[in-house]
């Protein structure tokens, strides 16, 4: 089974407010807030760490969830965030150069 890599889209604006991320899409200026789980995923999305590792190292340690269930939920969340242009997902590691060139308004 291939691994999934996630990277923050540098085109969005983002700030942590009281522990939750506030994110404005660079695509259409829509504002989103991420809950604590999504915030952990966002902050760990460096393009180099596979999603399953983020789940086991960051999310499962923070919350009492089964790794399989957590990974399934994290994949769903990552794809939703990617649909909004907030995250980039790939089956290959995502380099900063690649992510910088991604997407336009």
């Amino acid at each position, binding site marked *: 089974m291939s691994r999934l890599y996630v990277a923050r889209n*540098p085109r969005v*604006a*983002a*700030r942590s407010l009281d522990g939750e991320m506030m994110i*404005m899409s660079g695509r259409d*200026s829509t*504002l989103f807030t991420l809950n604590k789980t999504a915030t952990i995923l966002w902050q760990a999305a460096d393009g180099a760490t596979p999603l399953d590792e983020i789940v086991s190292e960051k999310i499962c340690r923070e919350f009492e969830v089964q790794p399989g269930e957590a990974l399934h939920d994290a994949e769903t969340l990552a794809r939703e965030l990617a649909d909004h242009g907030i995250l980039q997902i790939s089956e290959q590691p995502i380099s900063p150069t690649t992510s910088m060139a991604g997407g336009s308004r």
Partner: protein
Amino acid sequence: MSGLLEEMTERALAKNIPLTVQLDLTYRCNERCVHCYLDHDDHGEMTTQEIKQLLDQMADAGVFILTLSGGEIFLRKDFFEILEYARWQRQFCVKLKTNAIMIHEREAARLRDIGVESIQISIYSHRPEVHDGITLVPGSLQRSLDAARFLKSQGLRVIFANVLMVQNLQDYQGVRTLAGEMGVECTLDPTITPMMDGDRSILSLAVDHNALQKVFRDQGLVGDVDEFCTIAAPGDDNSLAALPCSAGHTACYVSPYGDVFPCVQFPLPTGNIRKQRFLDIWRYSDQMNDVRSIRLKDLTTCTSCTHVTSCTRCPGLAYMEGNMRGPSSQDCEKSFARTGVPSANMLAKKRTSANLIQIQVLPAAGNAPVSGAIA
């Protein structure tokens, strides 16, 4: 304001976080607008490094929406370096205010690549002779409009900002029509701000009562005229406990020299980032906390005014009139023009001026004055 942004602002307010900052990068300008409140000489702007350090501090303090303005921001040779740093290193949501006359295809494409939320361009008229007569730069309207087209062609959000004054009173509809044709947004502001050194002479450019009345009854501008012009219900304990505006609460302003103020229109110095950390000024400045302490119920004169809960009263303009807890006469004029009901401040001034009228019955020869001469 969107529901989510409103919710975020509420949370920022509760946590004392400066969610929004306007940072003027320079007061230098390549236009000489007749109504401008700035001194355009450079008195020691922050260096690139100082600005980057400030951006670091502001990001750490929780600032999310960063408006870069001036002066003309594109006059700074390091403008794109600062913008890239703000966007790519510190992930601010960046808005720009500019006259845009230095923006060509290349700059527009670069702004698209960096990613800015919006670009606000000052457009005072659809007629070159009027716009250029205000900016005092021949050809400036054409250059600003060309820039707006370059930016639109890159898919960027453009907003025309029109300041209403005596010179362009007849042209705001023309600007709106032009904006509509170009697919850009348009704002109209009848406020003329006194010079930052306190000189109020440029207030003579402000439009008069009749013109304001006409603007406030323009359905295309205000929507439902009856609703817009209605007199608000009297203030109750809840509404009088409200904050006057966001200045010092979730927003502030930083000048090119590092001075921090509650708002761009509120020249009360609260500290300088060359001497203190941004967050320390924001949290601990006596002046900032003084501004923060004001509620509608604390205002002199205004608390008893019919318009207290619906007035656009600007505490910065009030401060420039001498009392940040006092009325702002320009906003009194707006409330009056909108509703037809004079403000408490206007009535008080009328009483004062009535008391100053000197009517003296000339005494008959050899008699003492009949009525007391006043002052």
